[in-house]
């Protein structure tokens, strides 16, 4: 118990100590460097206050979240049924897999020229950047989950002559859930990067837009504010889904 207490306190005070050291050093170095190139923490905090007071940061975050959530929800709605189809008809899944894999492993920054000719540089284009890659992540993982139904449970269920509905309700769906959640997490990571790419390269709006405009105005403090908000947002979303994934991990069976 005593050991646990010290361990717990160590995981609290060490990160704080290191943060203080890093911020202190950053501040000292930052003050001696040209402010057009480098920003000490004090000026970042001042800039953060300014951006909050003017409402600029909140407005930008709102725009980012709109595209992010709408694209993500559409990806879930399209991705899960697609994945179920691919898993239930392995032949269909096998035929589709190479394309999805190829698209998924293509860096999105190089697809930007194609997206511009297809969707322009407006909201639809940004939405597509979020939606498409997220939907692929979700559908591929869902398909894997549907395919990886535990054979021992299937056997038991068959020997009890359960119906189609019961098979789906008690064996197939619980078996697929952990995979679907993995897909939701991987998809969320993709969605966050997608929304930022759209805002930096297509329509200069939102948090990504702040980074782009601040970099052309040589305002590193403003850039870092937007980066920090993106990092915090991403951490919250990904950790939440991570915890969900860990919770359902016990249902998973990767042995086959």
């Amino acid at each position, binding site marked *: 118990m005593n050991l646990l207490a010290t361990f717990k306190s*160590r*995981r609290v005070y*060490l*990160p704080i*100590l*290191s*943060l203080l050291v*890093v911020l202190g050093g950053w501040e000292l170095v930052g003050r001696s460097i040209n402010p057009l*190139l*480098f920003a000490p923490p004090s000026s970042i905090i001042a800039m953060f206050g300014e951006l909050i007071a003017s409402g600029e940061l909140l407005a930008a975050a709102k725009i980012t979240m709109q595209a992010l959530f709408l694209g993500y929800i559409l990806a879930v709605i399209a991705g899960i049924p697609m994945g179920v189809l691919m898993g239930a008809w*392995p*032949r269909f899944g*096998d*035929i*589709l*897999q*190479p*394309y999805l*894999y*190829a698209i998924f*492993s*293509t*860096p*999105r*920054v*190089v*697809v*930007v*020229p*194609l997206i*511009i*000719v*297809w969707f322009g540089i407006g909201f639809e284009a940004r939405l597509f950047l979020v939606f498409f890659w997220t939907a692929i992540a979700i559908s591929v993982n869902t398909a894997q989950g549907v395919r990886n139904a535990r054979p021992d449970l299937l056997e038991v269920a068959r020997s009890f002559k359960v119906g189609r509905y019961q098979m789906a309700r008690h064996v197939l769906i619980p078996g697929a859930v952990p995979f679907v959640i993995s897909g939701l997490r991987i998809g969320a*990571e993709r969605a*966050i*990067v997608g929304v*930022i*790419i759209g805002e*930096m390269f297509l329509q200069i709006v939102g948090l*990504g837009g702040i*980074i*782009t405009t*601040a*970099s052309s105005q*040589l305002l*590193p403090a403003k*850039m*870092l504010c*937007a*980066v920090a908000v*993106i*990092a915090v947002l*991403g*951490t919250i979303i*990904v950790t939440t889904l991570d915890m969900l994934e860990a919770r359902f991990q016990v249902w998973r069976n990767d042995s086959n």
Partner: protein
Amino acid sequence: MKTLSRLETRRDQLIGVALFLSVWEVAAQLFDKPLLLPPVSAILTALWDLIISGELITALGESIFLLIVGLLVAIVIGFVFGTIIARSKTAYWMLNPYFSALFVTPTIALVPLVLVWFGFGFTGRVLVVVLAAVVPILFSVASGLRDAPGDLIDVARSFGVKGEIPLLFTVRLRAALPVLMAGLRLAAGRAVVGMAVAETYLRLGGIGGLIKSYGAVFRTDYVFASILPLSLLGILLVSGIGRIERRLKWS
């Protein structure tokens, strides 16, 4: 559910690709808007043109060089910090938050900062690849070394392997190899993305620059023709590492 053999699956996939490409060709010819959807034949012509003009080879060479240098630097940094984090709880709690933050921050959001601080020269481009790739390597080194099997280390000790450094190289690293390869595979995928980001955002060069400059003049056929080798590069790299990884699964 009848499971198909590998050969049958391959056959289905080949038929699928042939069908897909012919539908694409016919649709594109009927649709006749090469800006939006160039026919497959035009893309292949563009690809051939890029190959014989040497443009593609030069660009690929430049990209692969950047990729390799970036990955090597990421491996060195990831190895050093991963080892420190694995061997010391204090270092873990002091350093881990920064690497976790780096992992969740989209690399692309950091690129303007790299541009301001390091310029668009080779250093800046390598740094973007490193930022993208270093964390998976570091985490895999840290977790692989932390979970080193105690019995193997005892055996090695009793056979006279003394000291932390020899133990690291004779036992810990070898035991961790499958985990390290998994980290490297993840890192390679991210490094390709970092490379593309660096080449399109910092300074037009390599395959990323090729794609962007053809995109700027709306030659969609050439854009497709230059995206293709880039995707292929990423797929080959990641699946190659995955193949080695599966071979190493002895533990």
